[in-house]
């Protein structure tokens, strides 16, 4: 995950803060955290006060996402501005309406935008071809195999990915 502030360094400081009854989470790199005056948490300092200096971060972050003026979600009528205010989306359709902004926001929050976990048995119509998902999974496995120095397995995976690639091109 990249730092929400500079967007350059790996975010290693994660804060949860309660502002006006709303929960906000912040992910910063060590440098930015220090600049913002965040100390490593200690018992004398309750966690709730830690991010007090950072309350504007998420708003600032969401503001950076350009969005066409007046766009509202056909599902619930919510605008991106409302999301920025509450930190909550209006309905599942908002994810399509504000796809571009959310993709970049999801990447900042999770460091990733591809779900690799559980899927409902009966899933809605696919937005991404199943083949691409399979390929993505193989690539992930390949990275893992290399990390673990399982080179035989890595070669196997590489070949599978190549096959998938030719299929795609053909």
């Amino acid at each position, binding site marked *: 995950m990249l730092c929400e502030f500079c967007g350059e360094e790996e975010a290693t400081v*994660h804060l949860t803060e309660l502002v006006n009854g709303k929960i906000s989470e912040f992910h910063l790199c060590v440098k930015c955290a220090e600049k913002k005056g965040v100390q490593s948490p200690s018992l004398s300092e309750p966690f709730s006060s830690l991010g007090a200096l950072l309350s504007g971060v998420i708003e600032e972050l969401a503001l950076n996402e350009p969005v066409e003026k007046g766009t509202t979600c056909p599902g619930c009528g919510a605008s991106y501005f409302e999301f920025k205010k509450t930190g*909550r*989306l209006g*309905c*599942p359709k908002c*994810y399509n309406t504000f796809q571009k902004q959310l993709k970049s926001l999801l990447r900042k929050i999770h460091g990733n935008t*591809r779900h690799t976990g559980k*899927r409902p048995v009966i899933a809605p119509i696919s*937005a991404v071809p199943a083949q691409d998902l399979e390929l993505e999974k193989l690539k992930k496995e390949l990275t893992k195999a290399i990390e673990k120095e399982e080179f035989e397995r890595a070669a196997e995976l590489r070949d599978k990915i190549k096959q998938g690639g030719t299929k795609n091109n053909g």
Partner: protein
Amino acid sequence: MAKVEQLLSYSSNWLTARGSSSGIVLSSRVRAARNLEGFSFPLYCSDKSREEIINLVQTTVCRSLYLKDAIFFEVNRLPHLDRQFLLERHLISTELVEEKRKCGLFVGEQEILGMMINEEDHLRLQAMSSGLQLVETFQLLSKLDDELQPLLPYAFHQEWGYLTACPTNTGTGLRASILIHLPALVLTKEIDKVLKSIFQIGLAVRGLYGEGTEVKGNFFQISNQTTLGRSEEELIEMVDKVTRQIILQEINARELLLKEAKAETEDKIWRAKGILENARVLTSEEVINLSSAMRLGVTMEILKSPDIQTLNELLIFSQPAHLQKILNREMQPQERDTERAQWVRRRLCEGSARK
């Protein structure tokens, strides 16, 4: 309508101290956020839709094996004290304590499985168990999820996974957390270092009652921070692995205490026992802190009694709403503190007898 008093007749499964490492790890909890296609998220939902959602989920739960005998609470119709009671028991969130619009809670057998309706998301499935058993707890939650899924139109995106009201939960919608007791790391002042490394791995640390709550009695809640990109199994494994590491560090710190500060440590523990067994006025904060020291004493085998279950129950049942429900009357804080002291003395007496 069901009454919260029904929950008083037994102890929640997660308080029984039957799980592994339950002296140090109080509980393992896994929750999944799910939403329904065709409805706005609860914050933006009309009252009519909120009711429709509750009805839809109730119909589904009737056909469920895992929640078939669950108790259902219309949380918005419960008095504040009852809601506080459910919060103290870790069954609802602080958000539901205040919610005025239609919202609900299912509580399964022994409080192992539960489900909040119309909290931040339409459904918040929860599984909770004693000690460190995240893998088993997740498996149980997943079974409930699998059972509900064919009957409910879950909002799911092919690339982004399960869609949630807050983008911080998108993907798996999964939060795996453990409640861990780390007094020796606090006493040896190693805790800052440990917490820093937990943050660096990308996990979150919170207080006894989760988001936005303070750390009390050396109890820490540790959970995954991100939900998208890693599978449920990977997230569970990460929290599980880190927890095992922390347990080892806590055990090392306890050995160090025995070596370097035996008398001071023993004194702290025996004094806590002395106060809890004899005090005539006790605040809930005092009970949390003193039972924390006693817990350290019992797990280090400095004290022979009470058992861990009694200490778990002391922690939860001596809190304001529980105390008032147990004694079956509403009380002002001052009266509560006196009654609490008496109740704690009796429980510790019984706890010693049980051992």
